[in-house]
């Protein structure tokens, strides 16, 4: 599944200061759908190069990290359970950096 992932608000520092990543992510074996829950795990192991605890806490994003799926607050579309679709645009923004 092709996705565009964007990191902002300082999170890009965790992935070598690259803000926009164009990626292909496969659903877990035996499943035909990719949920946000799985995407987070994928991002953590494939894109985050340092301090992964700044990105995730438990099985979700660290509180204070905002997530938008196609410019819509993920809290409106099911948070971790949101199923991703082809060409979705997912944005992660940290609110924890600077003021």
């Amino acid at each position, binding site marked *: 599944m092709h996705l565009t992932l964007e990191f*902002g*608000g*300082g999170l890009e*520092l965790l992935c070598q200061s690259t803000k926009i990543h164009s990626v292909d992510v496969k659903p877990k074996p035996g499943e035909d759908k990719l*949920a946000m829950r799985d995407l987070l795990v994928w991002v953590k192991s494939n894109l985050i190069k340092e301090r992964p605890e*700044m990105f995730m806490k438990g099985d979700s994003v*660290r*509180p*204070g990290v*905002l997530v*938008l*799926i196609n*410019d*819509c*607050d993920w*809290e*409106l*579309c*099911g*948070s971790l*359970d*949101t*199923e991703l*679709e082809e060409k979705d645009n997912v*944005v992660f*923004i*940290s*609110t*924890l*950096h*600077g*003021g």
Partner: protein
Amino acid sequence: MEEGGATAKPRRATGRLCSTCNQRKAALKRPKTLEQICRECFYSVFEDEIHNVIMDNNLFKPGERVAVAASGGKDSTVLAYVMSELNRRHNYGLDLFLLSVDEGITGYRDDSLETVKRNEIEYGLPLKVVSYKDLYGWTMDEIVKTIGLKNNCTFCGVFRRQALDRGAALMKADKLVTGHNADDIAETVLLNILRGDIARLSRCTFITTGEDGPIPRCKPFKYTYEKEIVMYAYFKKLDYFSTECIYSPNAYRGFAREFIKDLERMRPRAILDIIRSGENFRTATSTKMPEQGTCERCGYISSQKLCKACLLLEGLNRGLPKLGIGRARGTNGLNKRVEQRNLRPERTGSSIESKQCGTLDF
């Protein structure tokens, strides 16, 4: 309400509608009210709420010259944008300008100042930059070279607070507005409880402080959630700078901040509840506020003979950078109690609090 296990619904199929206009697709869930709201309605409710805070608290008078503390970060960028917008829309009649402090940190502040300079043009607000070098004769780079990375945040914090006041005075400002948001204030309430600082606890929720001083400071974002500020900046594509300070890269990793964020996830209104607690604390009337005098060297407001900045500077200039740091007693005829109070961020360590840097003492 604690978050329920919302089940995933085909989102694009239904496309939840904005609870305000009932026409457009909702774009975010407001932490304050849990409403789902579209972008346009969000912009107007966000701005209206800040306008109401400004009006309800009589923050400004027409004709005042107001400095907007601008660091290039998210809060101050949105503050500058919204202030200029509201001033125009509601005819506040304010003479607004951006005030930035250049600490002299290569690779950090010079980059963020570029952001502020772009804001100057975009929002049509004049910019004044005051530098540590001009005010104190030292840049942070030079200070760190002298003292190392141990107490650098103390210097930076003390110098910045004064720098903004001095810059505002230099520019003949009547007021200074800062971008402290509801999350910041809630965190400060908690930190003051953790430190037993009752004097600050009673003051930290004031929307305006220093009214008896030369330049009162106020916080129009007192009730504004950090989440909404960041969402606003994102949707409006406001240009802000979010790199961490190179001298204190982990300064934002505080227990208290993390706790607030965990709390917000569990019960978003908790942030406002903490502020309400802070406003309603029955602080004893006998609580002594430190007496305010002026520094005999620079004239800055100070409860001691020398203000903290002058004391630190004296140490730097005499090659005794430890002067005024730590729990030294009796030196310089200074009251140790005040010394300790000023240094508390150092002493309690970075582990409980966030943002010693880049934020203003209040």
